[in-house]
């Protein structure tokens, strides 16, 4: 479980996160949604400590992450995997070396064992025969999948995904979404996903957090979000013609 207590973050006098308290449960895909610029990325970076919060605390299974020094954080970082918006693969390493990277740094496994683990992870994200390609030779969707493979190489307890399906076609998006959701259930991971894709919200949103004006505006499940009366949520969810049509037919 990941919990944030009253976290605030501002840049200059621009308050981006205003007193956010939220819990993300284990074995669930937790989504953070909101308009572009609403602070989703900032919230995620505060959770993982890439940005320091101005006030408030972040807990990982009741361990106070905010009060730890680099060494103590490192132990928790080893339990984290993160999928970045652009993939963030190391572009001077091959696909295989990318996935093997955390294993090289933090385990003393033999080369065979490491290769086996890499193969397992790449298979898990349905990639075959790409081990020796460079990241620049991959399509956007493949990069995301290699990224996921790298993120799960160390068997993380916590998985963070910043816009896993931005820039992908709808079909590939759904594939990636389902992949993350399956992995979450399979290994009982606490997964947090930033997204503004309504498809993901409805497909895989076990727990949805809606950010608006720097505040946690609404929280609920993918069933609840379709029937809430909250005005801001509705204007976000039913922003497209398609969604409005679905609503009028359904209700």
């Amino acid at each position, binding site marked *: 479980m990941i919990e944030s207590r009253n976290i605030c973050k501002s840049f200059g006098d621009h308050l981006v996160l205003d007193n956010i308290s939220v819990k993300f449960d284990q074995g669930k895909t937790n989504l953070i949604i909101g308009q572009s610029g609403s602070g989703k990325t900032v919230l995620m*970076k505060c959770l993982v400590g890439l940005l320091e919060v101005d006030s408030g605390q972040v807990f990982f299974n009741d361990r106070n992450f905010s009060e730890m020094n680099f060494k103590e*954080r490192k132990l928790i970082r*080893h339990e984290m995997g993160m999928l970045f918006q*652009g993939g*963030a*693969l190391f572009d001077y390493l091959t696909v295989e070396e990318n996935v093997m990277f*955390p294993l*090289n*740094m*933090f385990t003393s496994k033999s080369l065979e064992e490491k290769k086996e683990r890499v193969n397992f992870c790449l298979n898990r994200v349905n990639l075959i025969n790409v081990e020796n390609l460079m990241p620049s030779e991959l399509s956007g969707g493949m990069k995301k999948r290699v990224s996921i493979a790298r993120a799960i190489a160390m068997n993380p307890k916590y998985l963070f995904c910043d816009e896993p399906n931005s820039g992908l076609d709808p079909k590939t998006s759904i594939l990636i979404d389902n992949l993350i959701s399956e992995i979450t259930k399979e290994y009982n991971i606490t997964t947090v996903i930033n997204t503004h894709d309504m498809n993901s919200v409805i497909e895989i949103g076990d727990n949805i957090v809606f950010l608006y004006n720097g505040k946690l505006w609404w929280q609920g499940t993918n069933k609840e979000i379709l029937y809430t009366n909250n005005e801001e949520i509705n204007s976000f969810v039913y922003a497209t013609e398609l969604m409005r049509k679905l609503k009028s037919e359904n209700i």
Partner: protein
Amino acid sequence: MLQILRNIGAYILLMRRVFTKPEKKEVFRKQIITEIDFLGLDSLGIVAVLSVFMGSVLAIQTAYNIDSPWIPKYTIGFTTRQSIILEFSPTIISLILAGKVGSRIASEIGTMRVTEQIDALEIMGINSANYLILPKIIAAVFINPILIVISIFLGLLGGWLVSILGNDITTETYLYGIQYCFKGFEIFYALVKTAVFAFIITSVSGYTGYYTKGGALEVGWASTKGVVYSSILIILFNLILTQLLLG
């Protein structure tokens, strides 16, 4: 002014993160070897060409300046040697390397910053400053003095070539000149300067790359800043070290 102080402060803080124990010895050793290849061997060609040509020019200029019977001919060898060891090889070559190596380091690390690769390292629990910058510093502080020794030899060789080709002096006189009043301390001075300059080039361009913000345009800026800052610091420390060691 405030900006300069802020930069110095941030630089020192970064160096404190750079100089920590590497995560894993084997990985670190491999990185150093890669960097020696990238930063050192890759520059060998340009260093060699520059050195031969500069040595030749120095010899021609000296010969031109001593067109008087009162000054012995071996002065050509002597002066060429002094200029090469004291200033040309350690300082000029380091400035060239600041352009070549500095821009490369700053743009490499800057690109990793803007594409979130540095964040990816941090998330894994890796001290990215240490992982990315320390191998470069160590590799350059080790390999640059070797490059400079090679440069000195080739510079002297260039001087000798033009001297005998231009019939200025004989090989014996040139050899006598380059050994005349030779002090080993001057080589030490040259190597100390080179090592300090190597540290400046790698750490300063590592710093400007590491704190790149934004996108591709800013990576270009970071790389320019890396070259400019390290060149200025090289000139400054050249004065300081010369005052300390020779003054």
